[in-house]
């Protein structure tokens, strides 16, 4: 129990990932859904870093750098779309985003 192995980190990562999944599936506010996706990305990152440490190999960390870069891009574009959508429809409810055009 007191010795922390990679398994511990993997379980933490799995739990955080599940929280993210719950957020995506249950909430309707698209901003919260975006944040849940960020949680999931973080869960993945924890996993990568933990394994990088276990395997004494930095490639996992390199991947985290890429994940962060992709997350930044995703946030920028996603929130841009969200703002454009909000300006037209006055809502951030994902259920109302059911048309491809507005």
């Amino acid at each position, binding site marked *: 129990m007191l010795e922390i192995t990679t398994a511990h980190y993997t379980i933490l990562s799995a739990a955080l990932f599940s929280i993210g999944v719950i957020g995506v599936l249950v909430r309707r506010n698209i901003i919260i859904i975006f944040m849940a996706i960020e949680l999931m990305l973080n869960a993945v990152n924890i996993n990568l870093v933990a394994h990088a440490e276990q395997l004494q190999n930095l490639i996992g960390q390199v991947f985290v750098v890429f994940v962060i870069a992709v997350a930044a891009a995703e946030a920028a574009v996603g929130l841009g779309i969200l703002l454009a959508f*909000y*300006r*037209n*429809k*006055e809502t951030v409810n994902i259920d109302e985003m059911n*048309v491809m055009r*507005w």
Partner: protein
Amino acid sequence: MATQSAPIFDTDELVINMGPQHPSTHGVLRLVLKLDGERVVDCDTVMGYVHRGIEKLSENRDWTQIILLTDRMDYVAAATNNLGYCETVEKLLEVEVPRRARYIRTILAELQRIGSHCLWLGTHAMDIGAMTVLLYAFRERELVLDLFEEYCGARLTYNSMRIGGLPLDIPSGWDQKVRAFCDVMETKLPEYEELLTNNRIWLERTRGVGVISGPDATALGLCGPPLRGSGVYRDVRKDEPYAAYDEFDFEVPLGTQGDTYDRYLIRLEEFRQSIRIIRQALDGLPEGPIMGKVPRLLKPKAGETYHAIESPKGELGYFIVSDGRATNPYRLRVRPPSFCNLQGLKPLIVGHLVADVVCLIGTIDIVLGEVDR
């Protein structure tokens, strides 16, 4: 989609109240600004927070008591208010004012212009963030106030003139002090200029901000430095000389661009011209009485008159109707320069950023006591 409706509100529009309690509305002016981001798309000027009914009150005061009320209009330039009122009544009464009194009045009015412009410069610079200029300008304004205190005992509301002349002759040695002040002021002006005139940030904040063309300015009824900043030659001191201005040699600075920077330069130049006028007046100060021949009981003939002077803010006019029976005016109406210049605020503001709003309130140089009366 059937449920699609017009937007309930624009996401970007924000209505804010600037004032009546705001550090840079120079009193209790209230501006209702509609903002798109930081840009002002609409502006509503609300005033009247210091309305004291000075015009109405005047109808129940006798002619001399009203001088006291005029002090309270433009309270940073009380002497010019006194001057404008007294000259109007003198015109109505057809009273000749002695030359010495007219000279001293001119000196007082020009000192007042310097004092008022000091206050304007300080607060305007403060609004744009240059804190030190405020203190520097107030340091010199303090000297003006000292001179006034020595002349009439008051520092803000002077009540310094009487119908037909002046209540007091200048104290002995006062003219030397005024001369010394002129010298001091001349050395201090470069200090302000050093801090502002060529300051890059000051240029960026004032150049091209609040541009108004000459015809537009005339159409809006602007007066004083805002009008001259747009290149319109209009100065009551030159056009319809009063007091002793026709005897002095001075220039009226004009702007070319009509922006905030031009108005700033004009007022700075007016400092210099005021000093020039004061020096000429002191040099040529004639001996003689300070009160004209004024009847004991002031009872002008029935009739009306309008007389305007150039106050630091612009054209200050008084319109007085006398019914010939009472010892008080039948109607007194003031044309306050601040009020007229405030008309120009909205066209200046719309389209600019919030930060420019304070800069533009500063540049038209209003005093709310005068706007509301």
